[in-house]
């Protein structure tokens, strides 16, 4: 197997919790607690889990928009962790981000043209203004908008159109990897499909690699080659999408999948209902993080935390009982 484009090893991000009179550290949120995965060239890895599981933080740590506490991120054979200043900026040409909320991710005081031209100015890649304009125009066309839209402000566009602009911005520097952080969850159902199709078309055309972070299991299954399921800062299962969805091994994955409402009123499916809420990531349970809600937990699950082990055929599970 060739070297993957992205290799993340034992990534951790602990946010300090400040409190008291002098803003002293009174605890830590274990947002990401030892996550390892790889993403191959041209592949889409889905990162799925419920709110607070650390999936978005993982995505931002990979880009070093959030400084990881520890761990290693290797992109295209080069460690991202040690980079600083200009090297980090240069590295960012290769990795971009698409945000969840297209209403918050575009500067309301800049025209679309200025937003899309900015990366060229920052990196000095295209210096002539007229050439920049040509490039912006072709980017807009590429994402399904019109060249004349560059003179307008984000305010004038609908959510779906804004997300197209945000995707165009991510493409300006011709990156190899795009981290998509819930890119369709703020959009209407009929618009979601447009954006998903666009992302797939662009991947095929530009040989892009996606790290696709989302909570919607149906969307993640649709777009991903492989899927990693996260729970309380850890990956509990990682496998090929078809494999994971047809043959889930971890009890959390099973429960998660069975909870997804299916648009078929005749479907009779067996439900696994999880009791209670996700524990606070400020003091996650000892042992396996899932044992407090797990229907099959045993004594050892409360004591030791299971390793992410490879079963057959690239199917990884972190469970004592799988």
């Amino acid at each position, binding site marked *: 197997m060739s070297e993957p484009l992205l290799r993340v090893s034992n990534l951790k991000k602990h946010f300090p919790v400040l409190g008291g009179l002098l803003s002293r550290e009174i605890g830590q949120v274990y947002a990401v607690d030892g996550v390892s995965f790889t993403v191959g060239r041209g592949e889409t890895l889905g990162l799925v889990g419920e709110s607070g599981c650390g999936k978005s933080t993982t995505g931002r740590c990979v*880009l070093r*928009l959030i400084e990881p506490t520890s761990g290693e991120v290797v992109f295209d054979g080069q460690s991202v962790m040690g980079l600083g200043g200009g090297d*980090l*900026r*240069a590295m*960012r*040409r290769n*990795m*971009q*981000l698409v*945000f*969840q*909320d297209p209403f*918050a*991710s*575009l*500067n*309301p*005081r*800049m025209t679309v043209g200025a937003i899309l031209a*900015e*990366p060229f100015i*920052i*990196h000095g890649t295209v210096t002539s203004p007229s050439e920049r304009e040509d490039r912006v125009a072709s980017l807009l066309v590429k994402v399904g908008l019109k060249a004349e*839209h560059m003179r*307008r*402000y984000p*305010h*004038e*566009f*609908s*959510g779906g*159109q804004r997300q197209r602009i*945000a995707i165009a*911005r991510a493409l*300006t*520097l011709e990156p190899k990897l795009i981290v998509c952080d819930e890119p369709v969850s703020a959009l209407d159902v009929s618009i979601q499909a447009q954006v998903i199709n666009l992302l797939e078309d662009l991947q095929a055309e530009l040989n892009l690699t996606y790290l696709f972070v989302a909570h919607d299991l149906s969307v993640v299954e649709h777009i991903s080659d492989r899927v990693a399921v996260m729970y309380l800062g850890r990956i509990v299962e990682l496998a090929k999408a078809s494999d994971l969805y047809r043959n889930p091994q971890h009890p959390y994955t099973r429960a998660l999948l069975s909870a997804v409402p299916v648009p078929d009123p005749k479907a009779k499916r067996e439900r696994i209902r999880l009791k209670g809420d996700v524990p606070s990531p400020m003091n996650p349970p000892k042992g396996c993080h899932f044992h407090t809600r797990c229907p099959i937990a045993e004594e050892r699950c409360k004591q030791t935390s299971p390793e992410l082990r490879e079963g057959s055929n690239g199917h990884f599970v972190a469970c004592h009982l799988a």
Partner: protein
Amino acid sequence: MAGLTLASPSAEPQRRGYSPWRETWRRYRRHRPAVVSAVLLLLLIAAVVLGPFAWRVSISDMDVVAGLQGPSLAHPFGTDDLGQDILARMIYGGRISLAVGLAAMLVSVFVGTLIGALAGMSRGALGYALMWLTDLFLSLPQLPLLLMLIYLFRDGLKAVFGPEGGIFILIVLVIGGLRWMPVARLVRAQFLSLREKEFVEAARALGASPVRQVVRHILPNALGPVIIAGTIDVAAAIIAESTLSFLGLGFPPDTPTWGRILYDAKDFLDIGPHWALFPGGAIFIAVVAINFIGDGLRDALDARKVI
């Protein structure tokens, strides 16, 4: 409520020629008192700037015989005890009063924005230190301090910049220098929330330097409240200057600012009320107009408010 969220645009790009500033102007026009006030203030400015070309009476021509006359054709605003033409003195003094207001506002907005921005971007001790400084300034008793500073520095500055220039610089610096704190707090709060916004994060992800993030992305979006605060500051500075002049600590007696004219008139309220009425009215109109303009700008720049 739910009904209002429906009003948010959702379809094809609409009007042509939209820009945030044009949108602000459209919203501003809906605030009638603010529009009237803006016209009034512009007239006032035009009057003090262009007035001397139309009303060519000297401010220092004395005619003690014609002292304390009420409004007449020769002296539309009447005369003071020395027979000086009040209209001419008001035009001259209005220039100084409005200039002081404007300049002091620029000082307070500049200092406030600088300190607020530094505090808002700093994640360490600097931010705390600057906010302590702001709180310290806020807790100072303003008027005694103002008086003390003027006593201390008046003569030094007079010697360097001349009596009028020196006092102007001193008053502007003192008023502006004691009014930047609210601006600094405002800017810091704006920066703290804006720097976490996704479009700023996007700029960071694209490799934008911190300076670029501030100048292109954070500052333009933080300006709205600063403009509103600045507007109100102009009014406050005009009042502060009048107060100082009224206490006899502002400009020298031969420099007739609105506050100074009012000060001179206070002893003749019974026999020459017109003398106090005109400068008092001018201050009142200017301050009320500026405050209404501030209100209009608040409505226009606050995008959350659906008009």
